[in-house]
């Protein structure tokens, strides 16, 4: 134990010296992991065999020192310091059987892995940048020739476009029946609708013909359809007791009028 302590003291001195040099440009570090990696170099061992405990102490000493010099350390450096203090206690104290968290060794191993990986990426970056580079060591064609582009346009549409286009149109005149020849056909519902609105204005007997909508009188097909629909509608309204119907003789004009309301 005392040996350890002595060793610790020694390394602490070394770390302190190191830290002093480091502190001058704490801004030069890219975060706590970078600082840890730099500190780890003082151990002069393979990163796989690094003493994380020692490293933690070095880091904490560094932070202490920075505090004494009243240097402002970024929050993440302090977070790392707190964590390393925690790690240190885990490494030094016998494991608490009640604690289910990762062991100090596991945490230390992961930190060592992180450092090794960061170092490996730095080495890889250096090797990458040391490669022959385009525009520096080798060169592309200086006088590339234009490739003339012949442009051909191909139009396309999806089924959805098609259906939406159709839907757009149909929404505009949604009330129309679906069939193409609908224009020559008037349904009884349409006639009924129309007649219901108009009947109130007709006090006396009026020819059914006058109920035909505008534009339906001239074309024979439409006239037929409108007449039939209106007639059926008139029958319907008569059945409901809303109008009366009469016809003077066969083929005479059919006349209707609003039934005087007998009751409320």
């Amino acid at each position, binding site marked *: 134990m005392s040996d350890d302590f002595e060793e610790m003291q020694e390394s602490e001195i070394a770390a302190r010296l190191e830290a002093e040099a480091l502190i001058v440009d704490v801004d030069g570090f890219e975060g706590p992991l970078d600082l840890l990696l730099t500190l780890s170099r003082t151990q002069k061992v393979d990163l796989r065999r690094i003493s994380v405990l020692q490293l933690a102490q070095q880091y904490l000493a560094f932070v202490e020192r920075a505090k004494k010099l009243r240097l402002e350390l970024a929050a993440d450096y302090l977070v790392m310091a707190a964590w390393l203090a925690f790690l240190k206690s885990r490494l030094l104290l016998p494991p608490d059987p009640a604690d289910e968290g990762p062991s100090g060794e596991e945490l230390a191993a992961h930190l060592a892995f992180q450092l090794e990986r960061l170092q490996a990426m730095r080495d890889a970056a250096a090797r990458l940048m040391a490669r022959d580079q385009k525009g520096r060591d080798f060169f592309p064609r200086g006088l590339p020739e234009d490739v003339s582009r012949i442009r051909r346009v191909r139009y396309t*549409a999806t089924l959805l476009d098609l259906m939406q286009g*159709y839907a757009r149109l149909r929404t505009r005149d949604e009330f129309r029946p679906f069939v193409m020849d609908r224009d020559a056909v008037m349904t009884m519902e349409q006639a009924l609708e129309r007649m219901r609105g108009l009947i109130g204005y007709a006090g006396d007997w009026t020819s059914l013909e006058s109920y035909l909508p505008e*534009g339906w009188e001239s074309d024979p097909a439409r006239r037929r359809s409108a007449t039939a629909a209106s007639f059926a509608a008139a029958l319907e309204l008569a059945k409901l007791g809303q109008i009366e119907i009469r016809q003077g003789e066969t083929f005479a004009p059919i006349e209707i009028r609003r039934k005087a309301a007998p009751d409320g």
Partner: protein
Amino acid sequence: MAETDASEEKEESLFEAPPMGEQERMVEAILFASADPVSLRELQARMPHGSDPAEALVHLRKRYEGRGVRLVRVGDAWAMRTAPDLGFLMQKETVETRKLSRAAIETLAIIAYHQPCTRAEIEEIRGVSVSRGTIDQLLEMEWIRFGRRRMTPGRPVTYVVTQEFLDHFGLESARDLPGLKELRAAGLLDSRPPPGQMPGAGDGEEEEEESLEGQSELFED
């Protein structure tokens, strides 16, 4: 090595110039990478002392004879150029895909849903006249074709969709197109009723219009 340029030059020229093969490589690389033709003088300046770019050029020119690129002289400078007989390779056909216009999509939809369908019918449904160009475009794309003439006055041409159309839209037949109810169920139909417009705007004249239309097309074709 605090010597002047001149003495350095002299000293270096004492060293042997690179072998001709090397010099050829150098000329090749310089000409390849240079954006402009390079003069003999510039080659000389860039190559090691004692080099003979003129001779290297002779070798290089021979080497590229009959190849896909050639060494050509441009004034008093040199450059590499594509062999003239391969100029046709310097073209690239790009196919640009564009969305069909709204007018074309609507026209196409009407034909698909109502085929065989005359132009007057399309116009009647769309409520605006259909430009000749739209129909032509669809014909050219081979998405529609002429159907039978309608046996009505003027015998107007009708349009129907093609097999190509069915293939493009992944349909077995035009009858597989979803109906209005399905469109509505699929949320493709806006349930808001549109403002205004009673049925049969321009009703009575329709038939006549169609005939005229048909007639004119009859003569145009």
